[in-house]
């Protein structure tokens, strides 16, 4: 083999703390290295051209580039060597930036370490084999998980592009958090008026299959062909028969049920249609509230249902589907604000969350759009908004800014004035964060035009006094303690990833951060991709964002999915396991552990042998580490290749 080694300066990123020329000189002495040089920017066009020229001039049969992390530019350089006529797998990278130059300033140690990493890479490369991908057909169907505005957008865009889309929504209706909002900032236009038609589009789109009140049970398979099981939860109502007339909800005697859609602002019935514009507009019974399902006596809804849609014996149903790609758009939840004792820890009925307040403002909400104190139904005059409840608070492990609270608080203050012209709003805030288009103007308007009093400071205590709530806090601008007598306190509760996002991430085999937000492929360059091919992200599940950003990301995820699924065939990654049949004893241990069921037992001249199903294998190498005789090896990461790297360190 004739190896070429290229030590990248990355400007001064590497060259600043690594003597690249010295590393190249050292590399020239390594086995099979026929050419070694340092290079200013290996990834830039002149750098890539230089690599190609060197491959041709020196008849190189393998290339090592020592530069940044392979997670960044390995694909780039693989294409480079391919352009020079080499197989793309005759290439190795040594990470001398993230793992060397950026983490220490000792030039001698860094130079030595870089040279050793290059030696490891070259030692491995000597055992690399040319690998060729296999192509396999793609299922042109997209799964969108989550029917909030981001998921709706992704589903519609993909469906409009001709893809079949399966949209799975946990709740009985799509719409997500946006459907709960009364108005949206900064235009103060009606949330359901803009979202409603999009929801209807989903219901009517011939390419979209909607599974509401359903959850993703399991995902197997891989990009191009995921096999998904969807659990359609028992609604106890046959939705084929249900016309959404609502008679059952009127007659249901269990009237003290928690109203999830309305955030518990007032009770509801056990059989519900979440809200008038719900999609699908179908009734469903919440089991824990239903008298028949819990106590065995009732059956009113069944009696009144004109179509006989009620079915108390209904069970969860598992639907299986094969899809080529998946968009996760599972949104967010509010944090549990009741941990804050200073706000009463949930004991004061007139301390409400911002989302509850949205429902109180909404004309279709339980109060019919009239703002009433939950405790006595009286219209409040002094309303205090407390910002950053659970945002930017390292003490509860939520150091981040939720991003949209400043804006919706401003909107709610405006709406408060609109609803109750003689009211006064007070806003306790830390900073006003309003960097969007028209956003800062909006927060000024609420103060200047709507006369909301903005107080920069934290609230230290809320306590009841008579039928008022005393809000005590600091005005840090004035440097004084303030106390406000409030009729209603609205908490701008911070958001976190949806409660079950981690579980979904595990099913999708994607990463998530410590708050449960899904990890994008690259924070800058791959904001909607994940590290699992074929899985894309949209909306707040990736990180908190407001409606326009969620919609944009929904479209972006759809665009990525459309790009992927526009192809008839995909190339499988050839870095997969292979069996040396004459060494395999057919013990089946690899089959037992393979997470992908990618290994099957075959009969070879009467002997049982393992065989890798090439398009199913994902290249984890668990089988390789399990096979006692090493008969199954992971291409590109064979035992000998890893041993060569170990020896390259231990023998020196």
């Amino acid at each position, binding site marked *: 083999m004739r190896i070429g080694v290229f030590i990248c300066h990355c400007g001064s990123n590497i060259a600043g703390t690594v003597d690249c020329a010295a590393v190249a000189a050292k590399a*020239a*002495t390594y*086995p*099979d*290295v*026929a050419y070694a040089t340092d290079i200013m920017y290996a990834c830039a066009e002149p750098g890539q051209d230089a690599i190609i020229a060197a491959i041709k001039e020196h008849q190189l049969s393998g290339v090592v580039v020592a530069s940044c992390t392979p997670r960044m530019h390995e694909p780039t350089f693989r294409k480079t060597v391919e352009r020079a006529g080499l197989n793309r797998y005759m290439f190795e990278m040594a990470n001398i930036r993230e793992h060397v130059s950026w983490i220490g300033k000792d030039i001698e140690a860094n130079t030595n370490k870089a040279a050793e990493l290059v030696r490891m890479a070259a030692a491995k490369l000597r055992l690399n084999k040319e690998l060729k991908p296999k192509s396999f057909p793609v299922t042109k169907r997209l799964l969108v998980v989550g029917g909030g505005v981001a998921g709706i957008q992704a589903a519609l865009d993909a469906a409009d592009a001709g893809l079949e889309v399966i949209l799975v929504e946990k709740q009985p209706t799509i719409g997500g958090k946006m459907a709960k909002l009364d108005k949206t900032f900064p235009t103060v236009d009606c949330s359901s008026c803009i979202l409603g038609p999009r929801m209807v589009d989903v219901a009517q789109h011939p390419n979209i299959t909607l599974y509401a009140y359903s959850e993703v049970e399991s995902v197997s398979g891989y990009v191009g062909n995921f096999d998904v099981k969807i659990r359609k939860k028992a609604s106890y109502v046959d939705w084929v028969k249900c016309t959404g007339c609502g008679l059952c909800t009127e007659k249901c005697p269990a009237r003290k049920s928690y109203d999830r859609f309305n955030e518990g602002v007032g009770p509801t019935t056990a059989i519900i249609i979440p809200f008038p514009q719900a999609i699908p507009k179908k009734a469903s019974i919440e089991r824990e509230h239903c008298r028949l399902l819990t106590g065995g006596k009732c059956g009113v809804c069944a009696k009144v249902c004109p179509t006989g849609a009620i079915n108390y014996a209904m069970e969860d149903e598992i639907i299986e589907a094969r899809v080529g790609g998946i968009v996760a758009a599972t949104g967010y939840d509010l944090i549990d604000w009741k941990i804050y004792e200073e706000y009463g820890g949930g004991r004061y009925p007139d301390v409400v969350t911002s989302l509850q307040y949205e429902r109180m403002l909404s004309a279709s909400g339980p109060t019919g759009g009239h703002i009433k104190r939950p405790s006595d139904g009286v219209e409040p005059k002094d309303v205090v908004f407390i910002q950053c409840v659970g945002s930017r608070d390292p003490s509860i492990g939520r150091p981040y800014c939720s991003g949209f609270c400043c804006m919706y608080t401003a909107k709610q203050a405006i709406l408060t004035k609109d609803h109750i012209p003689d009211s006064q709003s007070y806003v306790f805030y830390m900073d006003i964060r309003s960097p969007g288009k028209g956003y800062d103007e909006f927060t000024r308007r609420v103060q200047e035009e709507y006369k909301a009093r903005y107080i920069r400071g934290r609230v230290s205590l809320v306590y009841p006094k008579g039928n008022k709530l005393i809000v005590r806090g600091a005005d840090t601008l004035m440097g004084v303690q303030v106390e406000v007598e409030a009729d209603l306190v609205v908490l701008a509760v911070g958001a976190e990833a949806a409660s079950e996002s981690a579980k979904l991430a595990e099913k999708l085999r994607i990463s998530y951060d410590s708050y449960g937000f899904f990890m994008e492929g690259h924070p800058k360059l791959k904001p909607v991709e994940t590290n699992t091919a074929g899985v894309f992200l949209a909306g707040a599940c990736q990180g908190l964002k407001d409606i326009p950003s969620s919609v944009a990301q929904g479209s972006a995820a759809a665009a990525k999915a459309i790009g992927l699924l526009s192809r008839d065939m995909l190339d499988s990654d050839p870095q997969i396991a292979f069996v040396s049949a*004459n060494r395999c004893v057919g013990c089946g241990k690899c089959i037992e552990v393979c997470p992908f069921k990618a290994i099957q037992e075959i009969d070879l001249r009467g002997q049982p042998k393992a065989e890798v199903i090439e398009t199913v294998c994902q290249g984890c190498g668990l089988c390789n580490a399990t096979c006692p005789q090493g008969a199954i090896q992971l291409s590109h990461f064979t035992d000998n290749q890893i041993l060569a790297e170990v020896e390259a360190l231990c*023998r020196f």
Partner: protein
Amino acid sequence: MVMNTDTAQKFVSFEALPAFLAKLAAGATLYAPRRENKAVVYRPWQAGDKVELSLRPTESCKHVVFPRSEELFSFDMGGDPEKPGKAGLTLQEASEPGPAVVFAALSCDARGFLAFDPVYDGCGTGGKAKDTYYLKRREKTTLIVRTCKSSLNTCFCTWVGGSPASSEGADALLTEINGGYLLEAVTDKGASLLASLPAASDEQSAASRAAREQAVQSAPQPPQDMIKAPAALGALFDSAAFWEKQSAHCIYCGACTYLCPTCYCFNITDESNGLKGLRMRSWDNCMSPLFTLETSGHNPRQEKANRLKNRVGHKFSYYPKIHSGRFSCCGCGRCIKSCPSSVDIRKIVLDAIKEAANV
């Protein structure tokens, strides 16, 4: 070179033995049987070491002349500054072995070397390709064997032309007598080693003679028809049933071959690190299926029955055919004694003779 034995009888008392050993160890690597855990092995002797003479050694001393692994040569493919990654080739033969003495080996061990000698002397190529590694070591090794006082159940040296008091293949013979050991040189090499010792008295010589006779007396009687073994094994070559039955309990480990004083097969492998490395040889064994596995996947001796057949056949048929009837077996019985599943090569040979007679 065999010399007149009568003139070279020496005596070393039990007390004087350590001093004698120290003298031997001063001029060469001295190997002597040593007790280690449950085994008795030939190890380089150091002052203070007890020589284990009450138990017979578990292993043979063949590793003294045929190390379990040894370098044949080393190579270096680097060195050309113009073409650093790959350039020339420098081969360096392994360094010369130093002198060695084996003290108190079994008499059968020495006879084992007689099976090695013609093969390593290049008989296969008509003497043209000699195994210099073995020959040099053999030449530099002086072998002192001991008379066996008794026989074990597994001993059968007398079946294959040996005897408990044989000095064939050795340079000197050690016999325990009252108060110490009588040492008798067989070759000049042996004699020079014993030179410093006091001559044995006639009484001591007689005692030694008596001890040797006693040992020969107590040795097992050889069966009548061992001479038929080569033909019998040849006749049974295609008798799969016979070999399957004989090998049924064999677990085809290499214990028998590695303990065997006459097994000389080896493997050659390369090890390298980057541009440098070595070609080495290491013991190999015909009971391993890999021994004859061809690159194509074909294996002429895929079944253990075939491998056992080859092992027994080699010792009692093929080898004698090439080497004037001499068995490639010294009857030490280690293969039987240490076989984890108690395969008994004597039984196989006798069964074969019996079976062939019936055919």
